[in-house]
């Protein structure tokens, strides 16, 4: 896909290559219905999250017992919960914590995972074998279970959730990055560069890294929805974010207890969560289809 270049005059700089790849990706993306639909949904949520203080009609923690457990009405579009808090406002603020946790944990896990995967893939030999066995061991723990264990050690709260999730993602990222590095290493132009006596460091920086950026980003994109799912799950189990922080998982857990009397308490935040996840999945799938040479040019 990217023509390999060494230190020849007139070769595009890494920055130029990046902008070119991004531009090309955008062009491909635009033709994918899935990605556009997903992207729109995600954008809406991001707007809701960023502008929550402006958009929310009430403060998310404003309690009002006289209005408690009301169904959707003109005053409260999504109804109120058992404390009289406006659910719509809480859903807006919940978007904040969900998106923040999602992106932060993936970013953190990405950095460490990529480092480990790069090390394993590039070094090869015994280092690789050892590292990958450790990663295999880590991967034997399902992500949720591992996150739960981390929360047990670290304690509750949003920052710990981010940390716990990030740590659970190191394994999967390391494995994918290593596989990508191995794939790139096997390509003929790497061998050609070596034969031309290009120094190893330059091979890594100019040839290997740019070629693994897109698969990594796609992986990261897909992980965000998993992260949000896990974070909400942890909060649902009571092992994540602590009340009174508005969090969809917490709200669903609360709503579970009142399901017969006030189904909207769990229903509304759940819908929001499901919609965001669907949007993220569509976007990630669209991104993958756009960049996969086999399905390129396909409509949705």
């Amino acid at each position, binding site marked *: 896909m990217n023509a390999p270049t060494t230190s020849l005059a007139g070769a595009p700089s890494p920055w130029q290559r990046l902008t070119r790849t991004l531009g090309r990706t955008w062009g491909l993306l635009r033709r994918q219905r899935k990605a556009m639909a997903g992207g729109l949904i995600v954008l809406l949520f991001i707007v809701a999250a960023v502008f929550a203080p402006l958009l929310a009609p009430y403060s998310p923690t404003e309690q009002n017992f006289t209005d408690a457990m009301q169904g959707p009405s003109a005053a409260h579009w999504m109804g109120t919960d058992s404390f009289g808090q406006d659910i719509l406002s809480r859903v807006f603020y919940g978007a904040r914590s969900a998106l923040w946790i999602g992106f932060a944990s993936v970013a953190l896990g990405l950095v460490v995972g990529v480092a480990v995967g790069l090390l394993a893939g590039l070094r090869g030999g015994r280092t690789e074998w050892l590292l990958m*066995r*450790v990663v*295999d*061991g*880590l*991967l*034997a*723990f*399902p*992500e*949720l*279970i*591992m996150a*739960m*264990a981390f*929360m*047990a*050690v670290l*304690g509750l709260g949003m920052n710990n959730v981010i940390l716990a999730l990030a740590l659970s993602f190191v394994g999967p990222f390391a494995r994918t990055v290593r596989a990508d590095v191995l794939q790139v290493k096997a390509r003929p132009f790497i061998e050609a560069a070596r034969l031309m006596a290009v120094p190893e460091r330059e091979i890594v920086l100019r040839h290997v890294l740019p070629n693994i950026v897109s698969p990594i980003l796609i992986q990261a994109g897909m992980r965000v*929805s998993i992260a949000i*799912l*896990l974070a*909400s*799950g942890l909060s*649902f*189990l*009571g*092992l994540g974010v602590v009340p009174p922080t508005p969090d969809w*998982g917490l709200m*669903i857990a609360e*709503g*579970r207890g009142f*399901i*017969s009397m006030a*189904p909207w308490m*769990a*229903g509304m935040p*759940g819908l929001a*969560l*499901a919609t965001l*996840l*669907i949007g*993220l*999945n*569509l976007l990630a799938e669209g991104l993958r289809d756009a960049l996969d040479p086999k399905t390129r040019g396909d409509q949705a």
Partner: protein
Amino acid sequence: MAFTSQRLGAASWWRSLGALAQTALVLLVVSGVSFLFLKLSPGDPVAIMLGSDFSRDSYDQLYRQLGLDQPWIQQYAHWLWRFVQGDWGMSYVSKQDIFEQAVLEALPVTLTLAALSLLVALVVGIPLGVVAAVKRNSWADLLASAVAIGGNAFPSFYLGVVLIWLFSVALGWFPSMGYVSPWDEPLTGLWHLALPALTLGAWYVGLIATVTRSSLLEVLEQPYMAAARARGEPGWRVIWVHGMRNVLMPLVTVIGLQLGGMLRGAVMTEVVFTLPGLGMMITSAVQTREYLVVQAGIMITALLFIAVNLIVDRTYALLDPRLRQR
């Protein structure tokens, strides 16, 4: 012929040994992580055991007795030795032997739930995928895509709550909590497991339908399908005997790969429906700071994961003759 199989037998023996060494190392890492977890968890086990009033001396005594003054490597070895013998400690809360609680009581529940859910997913997902592949762009194709996207995105715990509201509260058809073992009382047990199995299975259905559809689409293009038709085999037989046989491998692969997701879903489903399985056990243990129980829980899940992966690997050779012997 006999000579070659002998030679190949020796080669595969070596490979099994290598695979065993790999698994052993992974198990080592897993146990190491679990041990580390225990050591890092907050709380002082000695203080907890001694209760509220204790003297410095009794503290030191118990400390030495528990071997907490030894270097970590030694403690790890002791712990590992006890672990493989089934001595997993005692739960403070339930005063029950943890091994009993985890392996004999909680594990079967989770396994039953998982098996049932997988069954539901296969029974619904495979035909859906087949129809979607055979009749492209039909309603089945759209349904399969919708289910795939939806099933993957709808978190199990939310779906569980929705199903409870729909089938338990609104319609009153199924119970919303509690567990009765289907091995003891089949009908009541299944009745209680209906909603949980549906919840957990829903997540898998989309996946299975998608994989079945895409694999079958590829298989349908293969010449051996046309060849079977050319021999006069009826359409349904061509699809199910010739086609699906070749779809089994990618299907099994995917099911194995997504096992982690299934366990995650199981945890949440158990909490939503209050089923006394591993998920419920670990969750309440974390909440009550029962670190020994949590540790037992994570060890079991990891071991389960590894065991199932090994089984899936062995199944490959069974399914695809091209992988045998070579």
